[in-house]
């Protein structure tokens, strides 16, 4: 196990370092001048230059990169250009609870909707239930989430008044059900497909034939013998999804007007708030890398074969 850790943890750190560098390069090297955007279209060259100086954009790229890295060492992501004097990390942490709640609920929907559907489909492959759920999950995979969200808003919030239209006030759960459902739907479709495929594969394996030969009822074979083996990879993938969602789901947050990290990033992009964009992208990538690492570790704990 320690050998596995020794190999996997440095690898994650290298990837994180690459993420930091790439995120910095993306937002600093590509054309586009935030100073000009802040100064406005009619500003004089002198004004733009002074803003440049104020933001530290007149220093060399290497200097800016070094400063950025040093800041990261004490969790300093810099100060927002647009929101005066607000540290990027403060702004992100303020928006995090909304995104976290959305992410957790979204992953729950994925599991609750997707896995049972996959099991039902695998129960009698090729029969009506299988074909219907297979088609439904393909439609779910093909539907753009923002459109599904708007459709749900139209039907459930506007036509039938079951949910609030948009925003985020107490009781928060009312404002989270539709967004998290929308978020989970696409993933649920994918998990349904994956569960079905893996179940069918497990159903062909020798231990299942053995269980059947012993006269186990099909339901027990399906739920006790197959599902256990199918479930563990699915759980790890749900963990990765959680990491992915924690970084903010821009589209969902924008459709439902939720003040999460995704919305924050999107607003920052409108004003070319470079430190905020870099910070938010890094933050999202950080969650993905860390969750991937945790998932790998959990996997190694459960399955000794992975440790090698």
């Amino acid at each position, binding site marked *: 196990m320690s050998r596995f850790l020794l190999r996997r943890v440095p*690898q994650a750190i*290298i*990837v*994180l370092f*690459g*993420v930091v560098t*790439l*995120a910095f390069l*993306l*937002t600093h090297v*590509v*054309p*586009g001048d935030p100073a000009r955007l802040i100064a406005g279209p009619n500003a004089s060259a002198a004004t733009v230059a002074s803003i440049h100086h104020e933001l530290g954009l007149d220093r060399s790229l290497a200097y800016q990169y070094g400063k950025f890295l040093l800041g990261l060492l004490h969790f300093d992501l810099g100060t927002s250009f647009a929101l005066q004097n607000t540290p990027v990390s403060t702004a992100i942490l303020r928006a995090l609870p909304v995104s976290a709640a959305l992410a957790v609920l979204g992953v729950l929907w994925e599991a609750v909707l997707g896995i049972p559907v996959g099991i039902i489909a695998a129960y009698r492959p*090729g029969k009506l239930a299988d074909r219907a759920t297979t*088609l439904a999950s*393909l*439609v779910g*995979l*093909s*539907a*753009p*989430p*923002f*459109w599904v969200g*708007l*459709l749900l*808003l*139209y039907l459930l919030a*506007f036509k039938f008044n079951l949910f609030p239209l948009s925003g985020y006030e107490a009781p928060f759960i009312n404002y989270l059900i539709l967004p998290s459902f929308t978020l989970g739907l696409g993933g649920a479709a*994918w998990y349904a*497909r*994956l569960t079905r*495929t893996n179940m069918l594969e497990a159903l062909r394996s020798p231990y299942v034939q053995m269980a059947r030969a012993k006269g186990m009822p099909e339901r027990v074979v399906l739920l006790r013998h197959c599902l256990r083996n199918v479930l563990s990879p699915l759980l790890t993938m749900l963990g990765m999804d959680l990491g*992915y969602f924690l*970084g*903010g789901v*821009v*589209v969902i947050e*924008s*459709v439902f007007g939720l003040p999460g990290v*995704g919305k924050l*990033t*999107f607003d920052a*992009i*409108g004003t*070319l708030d*470079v430190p905020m*964009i870099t910070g*938010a*992208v890094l933050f*999202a*990538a950080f969650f*993905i*890398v860390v969750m*991937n690492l945790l998932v790998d570790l959990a996997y190694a704990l459960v399955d000794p074969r992975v440790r090698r």
Partner: protein
Amino acid sequence: MTAPPIVTTPAPSGETVATEPAGMRRVLRSLRHDKPALISIVVLVLLALAAILAPLLASHPPLQTYPEGLAANGAPIGPGHGFPLGTDPNGRDVLARLLYGARVSLVIGILANGLATVLGVLVGLTAGYLGGWVETVLMRLTDVVMSFPILLFCIALISVTGPSERNVVIVIALIYWTTLARIIRSQVLSLREREFVVAARTMGLSHWRVMRRHLFPHLVPTIIVYATLGVASSILIEASLSFLGVGVPVPTPSWGQMIEQGKEYFQIAPWLLFAPGVCLILTVLAFNLAGDWLRDLLDPTAPERR
């Protein structure tokens, strides 16, 4: 499933190589058995025709705003009244914009994914075949790019480079090559130990020639499958970007952007939401179904791709 059995020789590592080329007869026979695939291909052909013939099919130009296309209170008018699918909030013909929007979706989806496929194959093939430090660097790079949230990466990059069709294509390609690179690399890893590759290398062929003439042909089935499935995802990303206002710039019609413009009016003009949304779902669904069918036909062991 219903597809006829495919003659394959499993390699020791588990990857398969079709021993017989996908002849036209086999393709047609499999299509006859796979109704969803047949329908999806018909849909794709119709869609391509609609996109190509947009100027002939549309009764109005897509960018023209019509004063008579708005009600007295300035609201868009519904289907009928001279506009087959109604008008949008600017008084433009929705049908015309849908047809021209098909061009945008298809062209961007196919170009972006084509570029991503080329990148993915190049990286995967080089990493898998050369191995050593080249492989380490390329695969770490893949890990890094995979760690970026796709949409956020695209938005951030486009916001600094400015929205345009070209930038959307480049940005999608830049984030989307990674999965294919990994799959190709793992296939090459097992292929390069096979006798014919070892023989080719022993004969002193250049690396480039071994990759191009001896490895690449074995990767073609996988590439075709993922290239088809990838178009679906690329179209969805383009639509999301356009929906967020960082995709195809106005006034060029694109489905995502049409949904965005319609969303303020969905309470009084739901067709603004339904029309482009249904087009989007049908297109993406057709590409997904076609990709699934190709997978069954060409490369049954290919892993699921999200």
